[in-house]
């Protein structure tokens, strides 16, 4: 049995962060309705790369979900949504409190309909505090959390991470919150309200910058690819790319010198101990190491160092890592059929449970693909569907196609 078999989730969010979380829940068996308004479908439906006129980014974010196209800002739309809420376990949104109240979707109004409801929001800054309700994208959050300040070289500027870490981290925290709420409800019958902030989530993962400042008052400089407490811990050039090494003990340093046939370096007194290597690194030891590493290809050097059990890795391009046997063996690339975009290969599921594994069985649904089916199950007649469609309260997939 799948982990979330029988759990029904209504997802009113758009964009990336919350969609990542509901994709994970769908991978592990939840029934997820992605609910979009006819006038304002999810902007992610237009995100590159596009295939057959449909976004494959959307496929990645919304695989395995049903698509219901419904104007829940209208009175009739709200009636339909409330009928669905009565049979659902989780309502997920990214509205402000004012918008929630306007749509009649605030927790207090919905509890009488569904006492065990888990009512969750994920917004850039949360529902409280001076920035509540302000817009932010992934880049904004990296800037405001300090992630950018801590990334980059000592002589260069603060640098954004080359992927959307704000969305991934807050999406993972949302999955945690929903799982905890489901566990609590299973044990007590109680639902509850959840208010997640993307900024809070990134801040929680800042590691040493805030710790050092809070404990010693020191403001750390950026350290590029080095790490202050071990040396050499760096990324160095080779003939055909770069290699990262991590030498954490003096014994490993001796092994490193031996593997690279450098007896003079091994004997040099100022390099014998970690702390002293660190003190003489940037202008002294590093240039010597670069002269050595540049004599090798990156994979050739990686093989040589790994042969001596030293921690190292060639800096891989995406193509190189995607082509690796390891990614294949770990099922980290999965090919699915998307309703709109056709065959798409996506990153797989990193959470690997042995008895109840997640699976990505299908791609995303085109807008309104499940509108008619869902309303029929709620008891609406074909005539009522036509009438609702004519009033632009619902939209069905066929109409989009024509």
């Amino acid at each position: 049995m799948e982990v979330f078999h029988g759990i029904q989730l209504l997802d009113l969010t758009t964009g990336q962060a919350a969609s990542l979380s509901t994709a994970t829940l769908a991978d592990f068996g939840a029934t997820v309705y992605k609910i979009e308004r006819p006038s304002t479908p999810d902007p992610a439906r237009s995100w590159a790369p596009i295939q057959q006129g449909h976004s494959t980014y959307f496929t990645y974010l919304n695989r395995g979900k049903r698509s219901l196209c419904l104007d829940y800002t209208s009175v009739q739309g709200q009636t339909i949504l409330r009928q669905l809420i009565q049979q659902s376990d989780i309502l997920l949104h990214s509205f402000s409190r004012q918008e929630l109240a306007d749509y009649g979707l605030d927790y207090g109004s919905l509890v009488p309909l569904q006492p065990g409801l888990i009512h969750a929001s994920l917004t850039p800054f949360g529902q409280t505090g001076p920035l509540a309700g302000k817009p932010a994208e992934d880049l904004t959050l990296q800037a405001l959390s300090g992630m950018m300040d801590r990334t980059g070289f000592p002589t260069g500027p603060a640098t954004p991470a080359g992927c959307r870490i704000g969305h991934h981290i807050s999406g993972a925290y949302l999955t945690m919150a929903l799982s905890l709420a489901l566990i609590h409800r299973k044990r007590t019958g109680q639902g509850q309200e959840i208010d997640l902030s993307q900024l809070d989530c990134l801040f929680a993962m800042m590691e040493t910058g805030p710790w050092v400042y809070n404990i010693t008052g020191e403001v750390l400089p950026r350290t590029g690819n080095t790490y202050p407490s071990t040396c050499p811990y760096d990324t160095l050039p080779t003939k055909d790319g770069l290699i990262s090494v991590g030498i954490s003990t003096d014994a490993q340093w001796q092994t490193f010198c031996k593997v690279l046939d450098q007896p003079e370096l091994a004997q040099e007194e100022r390099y014998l101990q970690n702390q002293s290597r660190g003190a003489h690194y940037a202008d002294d030891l590093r240039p010597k190491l670069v002269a050595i590493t540049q004599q090798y290809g990156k994979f050739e050097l990686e093989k040589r160092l790994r042969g001596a059990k030293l921690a190292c890795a060639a800096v891989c391009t995406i193509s190189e890592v995607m082509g690796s046997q390891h990614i294949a063996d770990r099922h980290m690339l999965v090919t699915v059929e998307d309703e709109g975009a056709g065959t798409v290969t996506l990153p797989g599921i990193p959470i690997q449970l042995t008895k109840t594994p997640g699976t990505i069985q299908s791609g995303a649904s085109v807008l309104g693909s499940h509108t008619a089916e869902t309303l029929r199950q709620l008891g609406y007649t074909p005539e009522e569907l036509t009438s609702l469609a004519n009033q632009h309260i619902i939209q069905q997939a066929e109409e989009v196609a024509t």
Partner: protein
Amino acid sequence: MKVLEGVTVLDFTQAYSGPFCAMQLADFGARVIKIERAGCGDQSREWTPFRNGYSGYYASINRNKESLTLDLTSSKGVNIVKALVEQSDIVLENFKYGTLDKLGLGYSVMKTWNPGLIFASLTGFGQSGPWKHLAAYDNVVQSMCGMMDQTGDPQGDPCRVGPAIGDSFTGLQACNGILMAYFHKLNTGEGQSLNVAMLDTLFGMLEEPILHKTVLGEDLTRCGSHSHSFAPYDVYPCQDGLYTLAVTTDEDFIRCCSALDHPEWAKDLRFATNSLRLAHRDQLNSLIAPLLLPHSRQVLDEIFQSAGVAGGGVLDIPEVVHSPQLEARSMVWSVDDPGLGLHNTMGNPVHMAQTPPTLTRPSPLLGQDTRAILEELGYSSSEITQLQADGIV
């Protein structure tokens, strides 16, 4: 009632990834018994920053846990583990592949002691594949998964993401796996093993270049402060530092142009759609950048945030730590640590109304709870003293 009240976690992990994972469970009420090597304990006890001779690194990721020191290579140590496993719901480990098996403490053994056990492994490369034996540092994994190649200036070297997200994000995903397995156990009574790898979790964050490769056959590499997908979505110098502006839709762009007092740019044929703006990014940035330069980050916040445009200054660590927003969200927790004394640290961001995360105790001193835990297991005071004398605990 706390969500995980009554749930016992036996935590064999050290360093950052595993302890960060276990801390999430502890924040929500699980009893986390941290097994540390007799004598030296978790290696992060040696990691900077220090105060009063105690590690702030360790203190920041081990709150709400108990510490039991144990020599896992001794048969008496294994007996203690067995007694604990019988009473636990979850085991968490981040040893190198195969280490616990060699000690006779692998999942195949532990599940015979406790069939309903959830056994979670958190490693660099997982429990399968040709790299499973490799040692993993954060820089090694960020290099191998493509993350480093994607980060930094295209004219310069690839760059590591500063905070060790290879550890912390993998810890989060392991925690999610554990919670799913626990939910499944509540529903069916079944235990299981699970594994999460740093390489997989970081690789899984790189959907943008992965999709460009699988769908279009394009090789994306790092693009500095730009975005491959949106424009204007960039970092600009301003009067007192750097400012980020992130426009992802055409509606945002119209608001952005109005906020900049140049509504006509929204109608400019070079900039009317996101793809046009991407194609003319340099021209667009050369128009925007001079307008931002004379203003402070605060003034720019007023200009953009009040117009509903995603803008924000690049903050340094003191600015982040003293942010009124994070303070209003109770994200700075004050902890009175037995070694460090009073210090502030990052709280737990999972704001749940009925079952919020709580601070019940600071991080433990090495072996602080050894005696109490052994007494609970039925060891007598003299037996415990003997175990201590033998270096088992």
